[in-house]
C-alpha cells in the first residue's frame, strides 16, 4: 500500500464523518503531547498548520459552508506538539494572513494564540476522551476566543466583528442601549460558538486517523 492509497482510503474513512467523529470519543485515551523543545520536525509542522488553516477556509467557502473553519491547523498543531506550538502556529497564522491579505488580521493574532494554547492544554488534560468532554472543550475554546477578541473588537472596530449576522445583532443590542462590551461579546460569540466547536471535532477526527508513527515525529522531546 503506497502513501497515495493510504491518503485516498483515509479520504474514504473521513467521508463517513459522523462515525469517525464519534469514534474519537472512546478508545484508549489520547496521546498527550509533552513539549519542551522545538525540534526541527515541529518547526516544519508550523507552516503546515498554517496551510491547513488556509485550506480549511478555502474548502469551507468552496463547499458554501456557513462557517470559517480556519483554525483546524492551529488546533492540530496544539494537539500534536502542545500548547506552545499551538500558540506559535496561531500567531504566525495571523501574521502571515496580515502580511498577505488583510493587515487587520495582525491584531487578532492574540485570539489565535488563545485558541492554540487552550486546545494544547485541553489535549494534555485528556479533555477529548468522550463526546461530552469534547463538546465542553469546544465551548471552552469558543469562550476563550471570544473573551480575547472582544477587547480587540472594541478598540479597533468600536465593537463590531465584520460578520454580517454578528454585526446585525450588535447593532440591535446597541439600539436597545446595551453596553458596548456586552453587545460586542454577543456579536462575537454567536459566530465563534458553532465554528470553534466544529473545528475541535474535526481536528480530533483527523488526529485519530493519523498513523502513530507520523504523530510521534511531531511530538516535543521529553
Amino acid at each position, binding site marked *: 500500500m503506497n502513501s497515495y492509497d493510504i*491518503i485516498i482510503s483515509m479520504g474514504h474513512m473521513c467521508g463517513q464523518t459522523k462515525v469517525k467523529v464519534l469514534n474519537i470519543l472512546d478508545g484508549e485515551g489520547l496521546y498527550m503531547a509533552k513539549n519542551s523543545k522545538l525540534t526541527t520536525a515541529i518547526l516544519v509542522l508550523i507552516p503546515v498548520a498554517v496551510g491547513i488553516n488556509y485550506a480549511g477556509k478555502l474548502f469551507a467557502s468552496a463547499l458554501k459552508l456557513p462557517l470559517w473553519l480556519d483554525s483546524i491547523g492551529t488546533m492540530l498543531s496544539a494537539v500534536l506538539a502542545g500548547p506552545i506550538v499551538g500558540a506559535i502556529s496561531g500567531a504566525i497564522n495571523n501574521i502571515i494572513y496580515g502580511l498577505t491579505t488583510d493587515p487587520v488580521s495582525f491584531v487578532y493574532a492574540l485570539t489565535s494564540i488563545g485558541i492554540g494554547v487552550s486546545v494544547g492544554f485541553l489535549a494534555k488534560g485528556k479533555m477529548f476522551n468522550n463526546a461530552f468532554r469534547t463538546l465542553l472543550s469546544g465551548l471552552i475554546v469558543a469562550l476563550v476566543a471570544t473573551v480575547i477578541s472582544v477587547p480587540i473588537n472594541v478598540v479597533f*472596530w468600536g465593537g463590531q466583528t465584520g460578520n454580517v449576522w454578528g454585526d446585525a445583532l450588535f447593532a440591535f443590542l446597541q439600539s436597545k442601549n446595551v453596553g458596548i462590551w456586552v453587545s460586542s461579546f454577543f456579536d462575537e460569540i454567536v459566530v465563534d460558538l458553532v465554528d470553534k466547536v466544529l473545528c475541535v471535532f474535526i481536528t480530533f477526527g483527523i488526529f485519530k486517523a493519523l498513523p502513530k508513527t*507520523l504523530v510521534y515525529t511531531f511530538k516535543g522531546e521529553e
Partner: protein
Amino acid sequence: MKVLSLYVENDTFIHKLEPITKLLYALISIVITFLFPSIMVGAVFVAFSLLLAISAKVFKRMLLLLNVVLIVLLSMVIIQGLFYRQNVTPAFKLWGLTFYKEGLLYSLLLIVRVVNMIISFGVLILTTRPSDLVDNLVQKGLSPRFGYVLASVLQIIPQMLSTTSTITDAQRSRGLETEGNLFQRFSAFFALLGPLVLNSLVEARERAMAIEIRGFSVEGKRTFVRQIPETKADRWIKISLYVAFIVAVVWRIILWVM
C-alpha cells in the same frame, strides 16, 4: 502563485531601505495613532503613509488592500453614527434615520487608525521581498530557526494549496458529494481536508529530514548569502522614529498627568 507575497518589484528609495526600518515605521506610527484619541494625529500619519506609498509606486496596490476592509469601515460609520452610546447631537437625516455627530466622529477616529495601520504595513509588505525581511530580522538577532518558519510558510502554503485541486479532482471522481445538503457538504469537507493533512504531514517529515541533513540543527555562527545593508538613510530614519516615539509617549504621559 509560487510565493504568498504581495511584493511589487521596483527600484525606488523606499524599496532600497532596510526592511527593519519600514517595519519600525509601521509599528511606531500605529502605536502613536492609538496613543492619541485624535483624528488629526491619525490623519497626519495616514497622509504621510500615503506619501510613502506613492513614492514607492505602490498606490494602486494599496487601494486594493484598503478595499478588503471597505465594507467593514462603511458599516462602522453606519452603526456608530446611529447607535454610538454618547450620541446626542444629530448631524443629518438619511431615509428617516438620524446620524449623530459623536458617533460619526468616533467612527472617523477608528477609520484613520485602521487605514494608517493598513497603509503603513502595506508600504512594508508591498516594497519588501519577504525573505529579505526575514533575513534582516535574523541578522539582527532573531533565532534562525524561527526565521526559517516565517520564510518557509510563505512558500509552503501555496504549495499545499496547489495540491488541493488534485485532491478535489480525485475525490470528485470517486463520487464525492460537493453540492447537496449541509450534512453531505460537511462530509465532503472531511474527505477533502483529511487527505490534505496526511499528505502534508508526510511531506513535512521529509522536509524536516532534508534540512537536518543540510545542517539546520548545527549550532554556532551562521553566514548569509544575502547581506541586507543598513544605509545612512536607514540610520537617520530609525533615529527620528525613536525620537518621535519617545516624544509621543512623554507627551501622552504629561497630558494624562495634567
